């Protein structure tokens, strides 16, 4: 990025720039519209939602839906809101993100700097695995987890998310490491560095941007997962997305509270939103540094 002192190719006239800004703002509106509806709805009262326009501002302004979603809405077996499930999600998201990122880095390193006959094939096979809808993995996965005694546990869920995350982290890391000159690795080896010490002292120190990309991507995917969470945990151990689903999907015979639904959805998304806002810069830096280079 530093190389681009003269950012942008064009420096058109004022009219052109107005058009550019106009289009960018229009796009921003498209992206923000649903968030606007979610936020305003979460601060409305139920009669207001029922009678008012979708795009109107809340009046009176009510925060009770947020309190409900956090601590008193029914989320399955109990009616204590989402706050308890928050930590359940953290419990498997943190290790699964860490593990899948670690394996991704290791795989990327081997697949670019220690290639052997068939390593490209392994990478290809890994990529194909990303195209299969997870719905079809549920039953065999349940059986395997049952056999190895990890069903219905945080460890089991961590394993599942790690396994299915590796393909993506490997893709990111491989594309990043490919751009690192082989000479760097070669020099280290001539100096007597081993497979492991080269990784530790040459590769890892320059990997922060891409590891950030892996962490952000994996965090988003795993935190937002519903399917594995609902099948491989139960009751009290449900991740927050399952609790949210229970809060939102009243069974066919229940009553809908859209303001609580919206507040719950935003609460559920807070960690990922926060990550995007705070670490978004790293994300871009990581991508720029090579995640997208061949």
């Amino acid at each position: 990025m530093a190389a681009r002192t003269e950012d942008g190719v064009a420096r058109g006239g004022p009219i052109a720039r107005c058009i550019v800004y106009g289009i960018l703002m229009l796009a921003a509106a498209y992206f923000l519209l649903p968030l606007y509806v979610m936020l305003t709805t979460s601060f409305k009262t139920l009669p207001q939602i029922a009678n008012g326009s979708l795009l109107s501002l809340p009046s009176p302004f009510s925060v009770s839906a947020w309190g409900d979603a956090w601590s008193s809405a029914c989320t399955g077996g109990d009616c204590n809101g989402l706050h308890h499930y928050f930590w359940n999600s953290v419990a498997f998201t943190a290790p699964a993100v860490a593990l899948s990122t670690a394996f991704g880095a290791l795989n990327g390193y081997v697949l670019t700097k220690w290639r052997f006959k068939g390593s490209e094939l392994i990478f290809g096979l890994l990529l194909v695995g990303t195209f299969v809808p997870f719905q079809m993995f549920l039953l065999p996965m349940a059986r395997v987890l049952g056999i190895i005694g990890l069903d219905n546990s945080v460890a089991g869920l961590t394993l599942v998310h790690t396994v299915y995350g590796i393909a993506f982290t490997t893709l990111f890391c491989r594309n990043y490491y490919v751009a690192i000159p082989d000479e760097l690795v070669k020099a280290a080896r001539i100096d007597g560095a081993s497979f492991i010490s080269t990784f530790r002292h040459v590769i890892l120190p320059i990997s922060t941007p891409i590891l950030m990309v892996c962490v952000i991507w994996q965090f988003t995917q795993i935190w937002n997962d519903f399917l594995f969470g609902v099948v491989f945990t139960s009751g009290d151990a449900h991740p927050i997305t399952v609790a949210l689903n229970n809060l939102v999907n009243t069974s066919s015979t229940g009553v809908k509270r859209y303001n609580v639904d919206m507040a719950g959805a935003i609460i559920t998304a807070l960690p990922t939103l926060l990550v995007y806002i705070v670490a978004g810069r790293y994300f871009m830096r990581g991508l720029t540094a090579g995640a997208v280079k061949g």
Partner: protein
Amino acid sequence: MSDTTPPAGPPTRGMPVRRWLDRWLPKIALVPSGVALLVFVYGFIGWTIWLSMTTSSLLPNNTFAGLRQYEVLFQLDVWWVSVINLAIFGVLYVALCLAIGLFLAILLDQKIRAEGWLRTIYLYPLALSLVVTGVVWKWLLNPGLGLEHFVQSLGWTGFSFDWLVNPDMAIYAVVIAAVWQAAGFVTALFLAGLRGIDTSIIKAAQIDGASLPRVYLSIIIPSLRPVFFSAIILLVSLAIKSFDLVIALTGGGPGYSTWVPAIFMYDFGFNRGQIGLGAAAATLMMAAVALAMLPMLIAELKERRDGRKN
């Protein structure tokens, strides 16, 4: 550097143990991922293919049924609707995300003042769970509640936007919401790609008198090829897995007009107690995806290898 001979350059001096380790450690390092891949992806795919040739219904069983499930599958209108929908959805989704992403990235690359903010705004949809954002889109796209109603209330009473409730158009409404989710991410990918391009080449071209569109078309966009590869892989993978959004947005409706294969598999496999049929659908879909993606994968991997040999 050659990659067909095992030691991709490990030094020949040093102790034999070291040499042995350097030779085998890389392979050992891949073992956990390899085993996981073998069991949790290809093993499960194999099991699914087997189930598609059994009479499995409420629960999996091992009674061989030949191609019976496939015969039934081919007669089901719901299946063909699902397949056609995925084709329409997949092509439009990938194409629109790429087009919008590239377009916005090029605009953002013009020294835009609030770039950081705009980028975050474009990116955030990926952070939201579709279980609820689907509901919001349902309201927005519903003619009686959302945009049509709003525009009409502003005075344009002739305005009509009823895709969501029209069986022939509903799948396009799904595309709108799906593109919303991923376009920002693709923008970020392209923006990163653009930032990685060596500006000196562009300047040289401009000095040579090449027009701006010309520079983009013949220099910048072709050099984004790897970005296209990464983006297409991620988008195709997201498209095939699209499930939550369709369920939340249309519930598969009107009728079953917005069903996609992932919904077909889930509904037949788990809800209707026809696991064999669901497995047959899964098998066919995987075969189709493999056929569609393999040429691209092979070409891309080959290209990279050849590129490096120079």
